[in-house]
């Protein structure tokens, strides 16, 4: 009995070590929906399996620096992958921009946000949600947009911060914040905005949100990791990415 239990325990503990064609991918929260669709296609096309973890770019950076077992990193910015490469934690030359993010001012209520975003200067709301600008590229882009509109000091008291773009979306989706800056990809469904009302922030309002992918040091010899990055550049994958509102 004891021996059988120990054997079962050993098998459970060792099982993650024996899968070969699997790639562990750290994915920035804003890219969660398109990435799930891409990975489904990737599996069909190549037979490889990709395990996805979603989270904030800054958190992934800290985890990767401390030995997190990811093979591929899809960042929400272009600085973090570059930094990882400099620090020898990513495979040199594997880095490329897989998507350029689009910022959207969104409300769960229909007709709350007008097509030009003038609701911001009217100020008829109690809470404006943004992702933490210190940590999340979409949060930084939201602050740049407010700066450009000259509304930063007026709206400062109404800002509430999500830890990442996913939580920001949750604040707005649950109605706790009347509106907020989210990633367009989060509110796109079948090629159009799924629910509520939104202003798609023009590209010139903030620096482009270039999202880079990179193979991490531990993924160098992983066939599935290399195949995934090739697949991300392919036409089917790029079509999925564009259908979620990336530029």
């Amino acid at each position, binding site marked *: 009995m004891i021996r059988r239990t120990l054997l079962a325990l050993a098998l459970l503990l060792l099982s993650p070590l024996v899968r070969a064609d699997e790639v562990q991918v750290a994915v920035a929260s804003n890219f969660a929906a398109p990435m799930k669709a891409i990975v489904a296609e990737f599996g069909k096309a190549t037979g490889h399996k990709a395990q996805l973890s979603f989270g*904030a770019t*800054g*958190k992934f*950076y*800290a985890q990767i620096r401390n030995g997190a077992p990811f093979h591929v990193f899809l960042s929400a910015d272009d600085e973090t992958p570059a930094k990882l490469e400099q620090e020898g934690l990513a495979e040199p030359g594997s880095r490329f921009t897989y998507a350029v993010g689009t910022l959207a001012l969104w409300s769960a209520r229909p007709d709350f946000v007008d097509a030009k975003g003038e609701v911001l200067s009217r100020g008829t709301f*109690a*809470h404006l*949600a943004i992702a*933490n600008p*210190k*940590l999340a590229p979409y949060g930084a882009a939201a602050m740049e947009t407010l700066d450009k509109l000259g509304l930063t000091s007026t709206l400062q008291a109404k*800002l*509430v*911060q*999500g*830890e990442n773009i996913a*939580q920001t979306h*949750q*604040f707005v989706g*649950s*109605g*706790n*914040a009347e509106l907020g800056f989210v990633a367009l990809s989060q509110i796109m469904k079948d090629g159009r905005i799924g629910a509520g009302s939104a202003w798609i922030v023009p590209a010139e309002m903030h620096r482009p949100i270039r999202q880079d992918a990179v193979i991490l040091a531990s993924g160098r010899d992983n066939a599935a990791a290399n195949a995934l990055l090739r697949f991300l550049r392919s036409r089917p994958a790029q079509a999925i990415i564009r259908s979620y509102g990336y530029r």
Partner: protein
Amino acid sequence: MFAAANLDAILLTAKLASVVTLLLLLIGTPIAWWLANTRSRLKPPLEAIVALPIVLPPSVLGFYLLVAMGPHGPVGQVTQALGLGTLPFTFTGLVVASVFYSLPFVVQPIQNAFAAIGPGLLEAAATLRATPRDRFFTVALPLARPGFITAAVLGFAHTVGEFGVVLMVGGNIPGQTRVVSVQIYDHVEALEYGQAHELAILLMGFSFVTLFLLYAFNRRATVPGT
């Protein structure tokens, strides 16, 4: 000694924990008294509800609180009807969330202390014509003192150590909802490890000293003749 933002977070956390502890003692005492004395069939389900925050992850509690206190949730409907607006992203919202989250840490020690008194002394007081009110205030409360001290300390410390719920309903507003644990998280995410250390070591020291004093006190309270 501390960066200004860190100091704000420390003061806010102390304020939150103090308010929550006071409220919990007020709310928790009658609940504990009832639980310690009742034979009602409602006792087990109520005990289970009180204990839920011990086993539930803060993500569950935070998620439901966010939805319940939001504009479409039942609590949110009531607060809006009262003209109070909605609670998430406010200090009041954090207080409400923390009261739920720390409830078992206050109710259970008090309930145990009440139960340990046993019926004998209370019945003796009753034969001396003490009213139920007198029995509660002059017999039960003084005898349950160690339980109250444990409850207050655990309630305070547990609120200081709260993170997941605050992250989910707080919105990270300086001076309002950015407590120490969230501030540490922000520092770590932004790779400001020095600033994170400054607060983390403080929290570590505070928690150890608090628990140490509590256990030292409880030992003295239970070892006879000391």
